Each structure stands twice: as structure tokens, then as C-alpha cells.
């Protein structure tokens, strides 16, 4: 995870001797096939300065403090909403991004940016249950599995206030964006009741543990699920029927970008079918790019439960919204849950 890939591609200096145009791209670690960067430089003559971050909050702090200037960033849904609200994003001129037509209409009008004005979806995913088929009697299809004493000390939860509380809110029949103290109290009680059943609250370790057969079921993000299922045939993934969180990582242009036209060219390039397909093969997250899915072969792509949850379940999925000051409320409640001993 912590691989820091700060790659300055001076390659194109050889291609074009003239003072080369550059763009600076700020992405999640391990979230692109770097070959596509050199391909972009070769085709457009624009150098790419590529840097990576670990969390939305890291990226936000850098952009909001104004110390550095990037031309393309990859914020998640709620972060797009926050940054747009704080005037940190540049509106996208769709005429300059013809390849945006490749993006599935289903994913173009999510509530974090309904027009859309600022963001082009890059990847998407869900939260769900990763389970070991040799350790469960029947395939789970409901969040109730995570409250089932059958799996006592055999389940892993996420050590992350927003995600775990969000799912508990769904279990209690509320919106996963609720900030109503009563709803959150329901969620808190559920998680306190669940606590004796939980083997561990983990983050990145969930991958090693599920691949190693440490637990039968785990709450995971679909990206991690893909990674685990590639490593172990015993694992399978489901988005529970009650609905879940759906998340998007998007491409945006910060308000203080120096090279907006270069950034638009880059985003357009990333939306091209062959490039999006190449990145899918490297990153493994579900993509909203229909043309790329055709390149990859629809049948093969849809075979993965991560890429193809049933539409009726997807309809019940919600994106996270930016909570603003209520983030503190979530943190407070989460601390109360884990410090219950």
C-alpha cells in the first residue's frame, strides 16, 4: 500500500524537444497502470508529473491548504461534494471530454454531483460481505449474517467509524447518511451487541486474514474482495439485499489547476475504452466505462460478483455524503463502541 510512486516522466523530452507542456496528476497509490501515463505522453506530448496519496483527507489537506497545485485529482464521492462546496473544484467542460460518452448513464447522476458538474467517475465499488465458502453453511445474502451467533469469533469488521456505523445504520433500517442521534443510537446499540461476536476490527489486515482462513465472514470494500478472491478460490462476495454503500472514485480538476486544457485531455484519455480497460486489468475495481467493458468482454467482466451486483440491490445502495461537523458525532459514537469493555 505504502508504495510511493513519484514518477516524473521525462520521456517525452526526447519526443518533443520544445518546451514541453506538463500536467500534474495526484492519484491514490496503486490506482493506475503507469503504462497508460507514458502512452498519454507519447500521444499528446504532455508530460505527466505523477504523485500519490493514501486517503481522501491527505489529498484534501494538500489542496485546501493551497501549498501545491495539481491538475487532476481522484477524490471519492463525499470528497467531491465537500470540495465542490468549498469552491475547490473547477467545473468540467464536457465538450472537451467526448469520451465521457463511454460512461454508463446509470453512474453519471449520483447525488454527490448530480449534473455532473465537477467529476467524471473513474471506478466504483460497494461494501459487502466476503465469506469463506468452506466455513459457512449457506451463502449469506443479508446483513443479519453479521449478527448471527453462528459466526461468533469468526467475523471481521472494519475499524473505520464511517463505514461500520454506516452499515449498522442500514441494519437498523436507517439511511447510512443519517445524523439523527436516535438513528445513530440504534446503530451504536447494534454494534455493542455485536461486539462479543467480532473476532477483530481490522483495516488492511482483512485481506491477509481472509485469504489465510482466519475468519468465516468479513465486512469489506469490494476492491479488497477482488484482491482476496484472486488469491483464494474459497472466498466469495455478496452485496446484501438490504442495500449497502456504493462508492465512486472520480477524476476532477482542482480550482487552482495550472493546466486545465491538459487536465481535460488527460481525463478524456482515461475515459477511452482501451485505456480504461487497461487500468481495470491493473487496478481490479469495477469501472463505469461501458465501452471498456465491451473491450474486456461483457460476459467475463460480469462473472465477478463485485462487478455485477443485481440491479435491485444496487438501487438500494447509497453513496456517502459529506457529514461536515457531524463527523465528530460519528467519531464520538465509534469511540464509545470500541471502548466498551
Amino acid at each position, binding site marked *: 500500500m505504502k508504495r510511493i510512486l513519484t514518477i516524473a516522466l521525462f520521456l517525452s523530452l526526447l519526443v518533443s524537444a520544445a518546451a514541453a507542456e506538463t500536467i500534474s496528476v495526484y492519484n491514490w497509490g496503486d490506482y493506475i497502470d503507469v503504462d497508460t501515463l507514458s502512452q498519454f505522453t507519447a500521444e499528446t506530448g504532455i508530460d505527466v508529473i505523477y504523485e500519490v496519496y493514501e*486517503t481522501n*483527507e491527505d489529498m*484534501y489537506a494538500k489542496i485546501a491548504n493551497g501549498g501545491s497545485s495539481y491538475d487532476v485529482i481522484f477524490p471519492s464521492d463525499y470528497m467531491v461534494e465537500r470540495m465542490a*462546496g*468549498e*469552491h475547490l473544484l473547477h467545473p468540467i467542460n464536457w465538450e472537451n471530454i467526448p469520451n465521457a460518452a463511454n460512461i454508463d448513464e446509470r453512474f453519471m447522476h449520483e447525488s454527490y454531483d448530480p449534473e455532473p458538474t465537477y467529476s467524471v467517475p473513474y471506478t466504483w465499488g460497494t461494501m459487502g460481505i466476503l465469506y469463506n465458502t468452506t466455513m459457512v453453511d449457506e451463502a449469506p445474502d443479508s446483513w443479519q449474517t453479521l449478527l448471527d451467533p453462528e459466526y461468533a*469469533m469468526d467475523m471481521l469488521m472494519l*475499524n*473505520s*467509524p*464511517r463505514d461500520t456505523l454506516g452499515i449498522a445504520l442500514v441494519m437498523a433500517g436507517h439511511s447510512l447518511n443519517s445524523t439523527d442521534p436516535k438513528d445513530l443510537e440504534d446503530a451504536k446499540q447494534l454494534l455493542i451487541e455485536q461486539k462479543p461476536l*467480532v*473476532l*477483530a*476490527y*481490522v*483495516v488492511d*489486515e482483512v485481506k491477509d*486474514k481472509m485469504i*489465510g*482462513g*482466519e*475468519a468465516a465472514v468479513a465486512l469489506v470494500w469490494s476492491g479488497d474482495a477482488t484482491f482476496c478472491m484472486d488469491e483464494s478460490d474459497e472466498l466469495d462476495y455478496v452485496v446484501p439485499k438490504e442495500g449497502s454503500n456504493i462508492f465512486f472514485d472520480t477524476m476532477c480538476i482542482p480550482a487552482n489547476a495550472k493546466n486545465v486544457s491538459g487536465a481535460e485531455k488527460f481525463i478524456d484519455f482515461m475515459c477511452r475504452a482501451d485505456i480504461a480497460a487497461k487500468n481495470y486489468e491493473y487496478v481490479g475495481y469495477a469501472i463505469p466505462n461501458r465501452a471498456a467493458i465491451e473491450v474486456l468482454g461483457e460476459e467475463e467482466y460480469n462473472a465477478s460478483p463485485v462487478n455485477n451486483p443485481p440491479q435491485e440491490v444496487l438501487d438500494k445502495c447509497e453513496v456517502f455524503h459529506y457529514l*461536515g*461537523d457531524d*463527523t*465528530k458525532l*460519528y*467519531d*464520538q459514537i*465509534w*469511540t*464509545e463502541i*470500541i*471502548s466498551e*469493555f
Partner: protein
Amino acid sequence: MKKNRVLSVPFGLWAAIFIVIPLLLVVWYGVTVEEPVAYEEIVSADGTVSYRLENGSVTDEKPWQKKVTVSFSNFRRMVEPTYLKLLIRSLKVAFITTLICLLLGYPVALILTGKDFKHPSLWLMLIILPMWMNFLLRTYSWMSILENSGILNSWIAALRDKIPAFDGWLTSLGVGKKIIFLYNEKAVILGMVYNYLSFMIMPIYTVIEKTDKSLLEAASDLGASPVQSFLRVTLPYSLPGVLEGITMVFVPAVTTFVISQLMGGGKVPLIGDIIQNQFGKSSDWHFGSTLSLLVMVVVLAFMRGLNRIDKDDEPEKEVRIL
């Protein structure tokens, strides 16, 4: 004199940039909060909404700016039982860790300095060697040993297969197929003891090693038994090393967060984990700084207490030896 002062400039700069300024920043963040700016909603006759800010200016757009104000509300939040409970647990875990390190480390240091002990430097090397590896790596190794699907459990399972009597004995004790070693406080303490033990051994070893051996000879010449000369010579002389060892184990143990997350599986949160959350997921640097100040004050108070023991002890020691 002047020359010396010039030589100290780089250190002074270093200390200012990397110690004083960051510390001041922590204090500043600790005593401030970030709040949305206050505004008043004005609904005009035709139903359009505008907003008046505190400074009197009016905008059509809902204000999103935040402002930083000095406030002690985070200090009130800090003394809530939730956080105090976590601080007390951290102190307890650190105390137990330090005690175990002392009980294990002191005899080791003593044995290594024994006059009959061959190749002490080789053994010392073997103690220090693991520290050259990253502690995360070593903690991950403990996880793969102790996990439910780990090495220890698979050995136990193999033994149970081979020896029915062993299996019967464990079953009669009510031990399940898998023994859960990880994900509890004991596992966290084990991880800490393993990681910090050498910090206890080294200072004690150094101090005992430097003690004038003729003092021991003198003690035995004057008829002291080995136990007496240990209690009256070695022990008092080694106290500074012991105190240093205690500091070097206790302080990191009180503030750690990685070991508790990995070995405790997030079920044994310590105050360090909560502080880390504030700078990560919950992104509330202000509250995180307030909690850091709390921990800093506790650690300082602890070090002061230790210093006092150190000073109280010195004259007494002289008397005993004389």
C-alpha cells in the same frame, strides 16, 4: 566561547524547526476549534434566501467557510469517561509491560555482566539484532504465529492428531479446535514486551558493566555474601540504568497505536489509537492535539516522578557503600 556558540547554531535551528515549532503547533491546535462561520438566513418577500455574515456582508450562497477560534471545549470533551477510561487502560497496559520487561530484562543484564559469562558481546548482539528489523515486520510475524490459522495453532492441531491423550486432555479442559491467542489485552502486552525488552536490557547492562568491579571484591573481602553484595552494591549502582530502562519502555508503551491495532485486532484500543483516528479518518486535528497534550502531561509527570526517585536515592547509596 564564541566559537562554541557558533557550533551550537545548527542544533539550535534543528531544535527550533523540528521540536519547538511543532510543539507550539500542537498546543495551538489543542486550544482551538474549527467551526462553521456564523450566519443569519434572510428570506426576502419573493422567497429567495440570502445569508448575512457576522461582518454584515450578504451573499446568495450558503456560507461554507470555517473559522478557527480559541476554545477549551475539546478539554471538556477530553475528560469524558470514554477517553479517561482509554487513558487509564493505556497506563495499565504500559505499566504491566514495563514491569514484565524489568523482571525479564534485569536478570538478563546481570547474567551478561557476570564475570564467568563467555562472549557477552555476542549475546548482546543477538539481543540487539532483531531490532535492526522493522518492528512492524516483527509484529506481523507474531501475528502469523498466534493467529487462529497460525503456526502455533497448526502445531497444536497436529499434536492432537498424533497423540489422542493430549487431544483428550485439551478437550477435557474445554479447549476448542482453535485457540484464540490474539485479539486481547494479553496479546497486546506480549507484542509490547517483545518489542521493548531490549530497551530495558541495554541501559541496565551498560550501567552494571561500568560499575567498578573492585567494589564487589571489596564487599566480599569484608565478608558480604553474594546476595548481600548484590543488594548493597550492584543494585544501588544499577538504579540509574533501571530508571532509564523504565522510561524507555514506559513512554513508547503508553503512546503506541500500531501494536494494539495489530495484536489486539482493534479490540484493545489505547489512547494512541484514538489520537491516530483524529488525524486520520475523523480528521479532527484539534481534538487529536488536545488528547496529545493530555498524554504529554501524563508522561512528563511520570518522568518527573522518576527523576525524584533518582535524586532521592543518590546520597543513600553513598552511605550504604561507605
